[in-house]
């Protein structure tokens, strides 16, 4: 199996704090990989390093996109998105003052071209592009289950729908790798079930999914492989069943006594 993302000996320091220490793992093409760990383990920092929001202190991140391997550690976030990595955020970040459809249209930004001249003159290329943007945006809304709600204002939607809109916006950038940061946080059981279904459908489209999640039902239900990190260090890796019974993981989550009891 080929790797889509390789993280090699990744370090990230914030001043004296080592948020990530010697992290190494790989994501296979077409899989759903869960990234778990107790609060403050460095999961989101790892996301930010991959997405280009944070610059890794040391180490390498290699993204393989259609037979081309590129080192993306320290690249600008817009460049990373253009290469084909999209993400959602732990605390939803939508464009609150815009309509739902505009949010998704903005996701199309990195796959489209026209700027000032096109906007003013509206020549044939720009009109065709704009039409394609609208069509694509509607398709993605459809895909996440927000059909016909394009004209609502993003911030006025219920929480679960905002999560799905964020996924639609990320999908609109046509990623090869989609990173979801705690998508099930604050969802009721029905909503998380729908979410798991959505994640599987995304994978079926050929998009690799990297998932940070605290909701163990979601992680165990949808992930094919799980990586555990703790205190910024790689702790364990394997199939959900193995991870669930791994004493090291139980210790990290519940403390030493619990591990002994198990």
């Amino acid at each position, binding site marked *: 199996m080929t790797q889509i993302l390789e993280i090699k000996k990744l370090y990230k320091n914030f001043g004296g704090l080592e948020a990530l220490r010697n992290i190494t793992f790989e994501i296979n093409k077409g899989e759903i990989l869960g990234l778990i760990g107790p609060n403050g383990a460095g999961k989101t920092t790892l996301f930010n390093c991959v*997405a280009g*929001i944070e610059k890794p202190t040391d180490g390498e991140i290699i993204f393989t996109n259609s037979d081309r391997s590129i080192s993306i550690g320290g690249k*600008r*976030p*817009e460049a990373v*998105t*253009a290469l084909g990595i*999209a*993400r959602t*955020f732990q605390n939803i*970040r*939508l*464009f*609150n*003052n*815009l*309509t739902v459809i*505009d949010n998704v*249209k*903005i*996701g*199309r*930004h*990195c*796959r*489209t*071209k*026209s*700027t*000032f001249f*096109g*906007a*003013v003159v*509206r020549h044939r290329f*720009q009109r065709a*592009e*704009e039409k394609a*943007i609208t069509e694509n945006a509607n398709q993605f809304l459809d895909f996440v289950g927000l059909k016909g709600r394009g004209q609502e*204002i*993003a*911030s*006025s939607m219920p929480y679960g729908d905002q999560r799905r809109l964020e996924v639609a*916006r*990320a999908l*609109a*950038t046509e990623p090869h790798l989609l990173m979801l940061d705690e998508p099930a946080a604050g969802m009721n059981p029905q909503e998380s079930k729908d979410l798991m279904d959505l994640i599987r459908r995304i994978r079926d489209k050929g998009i690799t999914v990297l998932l940070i999640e605290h909701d163990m039902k979601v992680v165990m239900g949808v992930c094919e492989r799980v990586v555990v990190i703790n205190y910024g260090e790689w702790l364990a890796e394997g199939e959900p069943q193995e991870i669930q019974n791994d004493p090291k993981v139980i210790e990290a989550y519940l403390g030493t006594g619990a591990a002994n009891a198990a």
Partner: protein
Amino acid sequence: MGKVVLQSAYNKGKAILQKTNRGAKIRIGLLILALILPFLPFISDYILHIVILIFLYVILALGLNIVRGFNGLLDLGYVGFYGIGAYTSGLLTYHFGLSYWLIIPLAFINGAIWGILLGAPTLRLTGDYFAIVTFGFSELVVLFLTNEIWLTRGPQGLPGIDVVSIDLTLFGGPKWEFIGELPYYYLAIAMVMVTVFVMWRIQDSRLGRAWFAIRDDEVAAVSCGINLLAYKVIAFAISAAFGAVGGSFFARWVTFLSPDMFKFWESFLILCMIVLGGMGNIWGVMIGAVVLVSMSEVLRELLPLLGLPVKVRFLAFGLIMVLMMRYRPAGIMPIAAVAAQMRVGRMKRKKVKVAAVIKK
């Protein structure tokens, strides 16, 4: 026969009127009103002058709105670009007798260049720091205009700038000079229409959406592949370009320039128009410009009658801004989303009140 033609024309007109929606009707009505305004009985040259001033400020406010309303950046130095545009236009006319029709595109490009020169290094700054730099820039422009006497004649001002003219002598036609307010009035209308048209189209385009994204959430915008610096610089350049075009019109209209026409106060006034009208909303910004300019003129007449110095009107502006912030913080005509949120807020408050009454 004639009656039938008239009848069918009337019916056709009625059908068209029924097809157009309310917003379009208002727009067409306003345009017709603007076009026939100079011929209405109570319109004097003085009033026409003020209306042209309103149009000028509409252009300026729409230009600043790109940076403040569309991108959410605080630009306190907008008047610097206005001044650069005015003086460049004035000097080019004064020394080389350049035609105004050539100056408009030149002013646009000139403004854009200055916008890029200032924006590229400073737009990396965020929030207050950026505002301070732009403020410094506008002061710099005024100091330059005041002190570089060899170029600008300094505080004495630059008089005797040619009026705008349509020169057809090259093709054996007549030369028609713009004398009085009337031709400038129609020139200003045309310029406002072009500006609004450009804003309108940008608003509903990839470029406009990228700006709105930056305004709403920079981190999310960058994750959608938007290059923050590039798009902010584009915004700043286009905004500056409109400022410079406004300045070029101003120079050829009043035919006299002096550095204190471009003091910081002007930036503040234009900013007030945007805040008053509704940040980011094209119509709101235009309403803001109309309200503030006309009020400024009314107060200029009214205050001496009350025995107060004219400068008291600045106090009145301050008072209006305070009242707006208290009762309508999103402006007279906010963008749709903000308006919707405020409606929800009002409804919630009402519900709470009702609940309280029931408890009693």
